């Protein structure tokens, strides 16, 4: 009993410690919230005395730095910067302009193309870039399956590629091919790449600097941390103005925007509507909201199969019925998706190719269009034999309820948001939907283990590639292989049209066929384009004075068809003394919220400490 008095007296101070902890945390929070955060100035000071670095926030992981394998936007964008293609796209209207080749022309029989290779392009190790390098690149892709992984569709029709002289490249074709002025294939230095053994495993990320001839030279890369590029002073079009270009990884969009607000990065893409709205009110930051080159679609599994005829995966059998696919799309309210999810930063989807490419963009006629019409969707499902049971669920003839899975990218908030809407729209029709959000959707996707999927591709000025991924030829050779196919589509009519457009050298006629292909794709219901998302991006005007968008009027910056944006970027004057761009309410609020949590945690920790103190007694 003698311990009673001292213990009860000790009880009070303890509560006081608690209060002190709380108060300290609050004071800390207040301190952090006031704009004495010195980070922006530090960033600026560092910039003034050192080189002028253009830092770009990116989130997508690089799949490979080998142009033979790279398919993701971030990787191909890097390749645009470090290697030259034969031709490039004009920044104004996307027509083919000289790249490594200065001139290109077909023979009268359309089967032989002759390219004149420029003499003023050299590799970063000093060697001359010649027709020999180009011929080697194409020949490797033709001979080696591994080297054809990413861009095999371009060379599938090549018969023979030769370099009669260092400035002349001759490509002989099996059949006419319309994409010869739009070969999006980076030309590689033969003397470096000849040493590579297995192209399907070589990722080009061990030896730096990477030998290239584009406007930039890749000097360093750390997985999911950064990609560093230096300007190529000898670049024939002129060296870029910045001293360094860094792609810095921010896996979290909010972190990237906070870094932009603080001035740590000069550019951030893929902004959410809320971020765009708040950034457009921030000083020294320009928000660029441009028509995108992407489509955003609802893909349905047409029954995954390989070229050898084997079926695999576990796609829902109901989706083999065109009426079911069309019913699902008819029960998807695209207008709501544009208004609510994209909040106006997108255009309602129709054809496969976005309106940014007016020559190829196609719209369904009024009769063909699958408009949002739940009643029609219900009728289609009834017709297909999926009637509602007493519990309001649609069941097939086998008595199984119509329950779908949809693959969603855990990293894309739009996927999740649209998934929520679909669950409700389709739920009313009596269709169940499970939204499976994964960090890595490739595994189930390639295995065909999905019913539906959120799908999207960036479209090039030449539509050949995005069309080729839906042909039978793109299917994997065996179930174990990986094909270029996007969604296992194999449709005879589509393939026929694809072959026709490839052989059509008349641009207007070819565009007509491409439109027919889109019409066919629309009717099959395998790829239902819901929207063309805008490119919503922002950059700091106190770090980038000017930068070229593509198309030049009202275009985008990240993921262009060319190197225009980063090559043309002009740094702002370094002695720029425009004040405090970085202190934003958003940051303050974020810190405030964190502080509130910290107080809670402080109390929690204090309690725990107290408990252990007691235990020790």
């Amino acid at each position, binding site marked *: 009993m003698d311990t009673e008095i001292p213990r009860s007296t000790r009880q009070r101070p303890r509560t006081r410690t608690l209060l002190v902890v709380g108060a300290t945390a609050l004071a800390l929070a207040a301190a952090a919230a006031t704009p004495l955060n010195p980070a922006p100035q530090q960033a600026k000071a560092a910039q003034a005395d050192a080189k002028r670095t253009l830092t770009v926030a990116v989130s997508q992981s690089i799949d490979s730095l080998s142009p033979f394998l790279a398919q993701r936007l971030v990787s191909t964008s890097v390749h645009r910067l470090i290697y030259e293609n034969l031709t490039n796209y004009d920044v104004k209207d996307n027509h083919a302009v000289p790249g490594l080749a200065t001139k290109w022309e077909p023979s009268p029989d359309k089967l032989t193309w002759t390219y004149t290779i420029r003499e003023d392009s050299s590799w970063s190790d000093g060697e001359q870039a010649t027709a020999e390098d180009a011929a080697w690149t194409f020949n490797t892709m033709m001979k080696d399956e591994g080297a054809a992984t990413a861009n095999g569709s371009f060379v599938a029709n090549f018969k023979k590629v030769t370099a009669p002289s260092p400035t002349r490249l001759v490509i002989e074709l099996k059949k006419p091919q319309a994409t010869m002025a739009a070969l999006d294939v980076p030309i590689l230095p033969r003397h470096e790449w000849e040493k590579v053994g297995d192209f399907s495993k070589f990722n080009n990320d061990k030896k730096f600097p990477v030998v290239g001839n584009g406007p930039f030279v890749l000097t360093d890369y750390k997985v999911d941390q950064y990609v560093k590029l230096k300007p190529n002073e000898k670049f024939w079009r002129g060296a870029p103005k910045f001293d360094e270009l860094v792609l810095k990884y921010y896996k979290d969009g909010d972190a990237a*925007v906070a870094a932009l607000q603080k001035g740590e990065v000069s550019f951030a893409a893929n902004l959410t509507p809320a971020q765009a709205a708040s950034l457009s009110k921030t000083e020294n930051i320009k928000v660029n909201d441009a028509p995108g080159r992407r489509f955003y679609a609802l893909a349905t599994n047409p029954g995954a199969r390989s070229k050898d005829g084997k079926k695999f995966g576990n796609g829902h059998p109901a989706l083999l019925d065109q009426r079911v696919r069309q019913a699902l799309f008819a029960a998807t309210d695209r207008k709501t998706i544009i208004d609510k999810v994209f909040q106006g930063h997108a255009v309602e989807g129709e054809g496969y190719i976005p309106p940014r490419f007016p020559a190829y963009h196609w719209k369904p006629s009024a009769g063909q269009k699958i408009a949002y019409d739940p009643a029609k969707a219900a009728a289609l499902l009834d017709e297909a034999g999926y009637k509602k049971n007493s519990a309001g669920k649609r069941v097939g003839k086998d008595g199984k309820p119509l329950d779908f899975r949809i693959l969603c990218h855990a990293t894309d908030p739009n996927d999740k948001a649209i998934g929520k809407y679909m669950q409700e729209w389709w739920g009313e029709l009596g269709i169940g939907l499970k939204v499976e959000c994964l960090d890595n959707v490739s595994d189930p996707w390639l295995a065909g283990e999905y019913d539906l999927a959120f799908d999207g591709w960036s479209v090039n000025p030449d539509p050949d590639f995005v069309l080729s991924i839906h042909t039978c030829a793109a299917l994997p050779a065996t179930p174990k292989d990986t094909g270029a196919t996007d969604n296992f589509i194999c449709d005879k009519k589509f393939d026929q049209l694809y072959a026709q457009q490839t052989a059509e050298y008349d641009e207007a006629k070819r565009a007509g066929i491409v439109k027919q292909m889109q019409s066919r794709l629309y009717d099959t219901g395998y790829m239902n384009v819901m929207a063309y998302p805008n490119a919503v991006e922002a950059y700091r005007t106190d770090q980038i004075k000017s930068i070229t968008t593509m198309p030049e009027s009202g275009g985008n910056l990240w993921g262009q068809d060319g190197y225009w944006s980063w090559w043309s970027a002009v740094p702002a004057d370094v002695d720029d003394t425009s004040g405090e761009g970085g202190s934003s309410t958003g940051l303050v609020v974020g810190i405030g919220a964190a502080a509130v949590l910290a107080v809670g945690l402080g109390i929690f920790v204090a309690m725990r400490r107290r408990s252990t103190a007691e235990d020790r007694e």
Partner: protein
Amino acid sequence: MTSTADALSSPSSLAWARRRGSVARFWRSYRTHRTGLLGLGALAVIALVALAAPLLVGGDVQSVTNAPGSALDSPSGEFPLGTDQFGRSLLGLLIWGARISLTVGLMAAALSVAIGTLVGILAGHFGGWFSTVVMRITDWFLVMPTLVLAIVLATVMSRSVWTVILAIGVTSWPTTARLVRAQTLAVESRPYIERATALGGGHGHIMTRHVLPNVMPLVLAQTTLGISHAILTEATLAFLGLGDPDVVSWGGMLQDAREAGAVSSGHWWYLAPPGIAIALVALAFTLCGRTVESVLNPKLGVSTR
């Protein structure tokens, strides 16, 4: 009252009277702790709100297609905490989310403590090589970072509330197991256990009739404390995007807020309320747990009267 009836009823009625007495004693002692009462009061309010959520806000609050507001409205008369990116009322979601957060917290803590108690009693009772093996396994779980293990489990299994409960439950039991084992050893060294064995009490009898009641206070306190831990872990997992995307929970709301870019665009009303709610509930459970512990723990109990 006949003697037979008396003989039949008296042991059980005695037992009940004793239990009633101890509960009353417990409560008398508990209510002297102001912090404990505060925590209990807060919990009662939150539990009431969570239970009454269908009446207060209705299940419709989760619907995106019938969302009443526009995206990310600031707080107003109609939406006291503003709206989320779908135009749903954040106050409604906060109330609805309490259900999941509390359910997961309670279930996961119960699961974790159940595993811990079972392992602890078995190891403490049987001793020897069995105890050594079991406790080494416990040690292994103890040194494994709970969060990492829970993330792995939540990633491997399909996304659902049960996965989260399981992931938290099977990762956080080792502390309980160690505590219970120590208590079991202490209890079993008392002479009456020896007497019970001498009178023919088997393993099961000793463990369930003598050891378990004696470790119960510890277990109870551990459960209450475990709940706050479980709620925090649930919020963490949901925030990392490992929760069930179809249900509304507080951690999930924080994740949604992050995805909408609410942090960098300054929409504090989206971030702060779920964060504060998590902190409050965790705090309330901790306050209660501490009090229960100090009331029930014979070593601490005397001092606080």
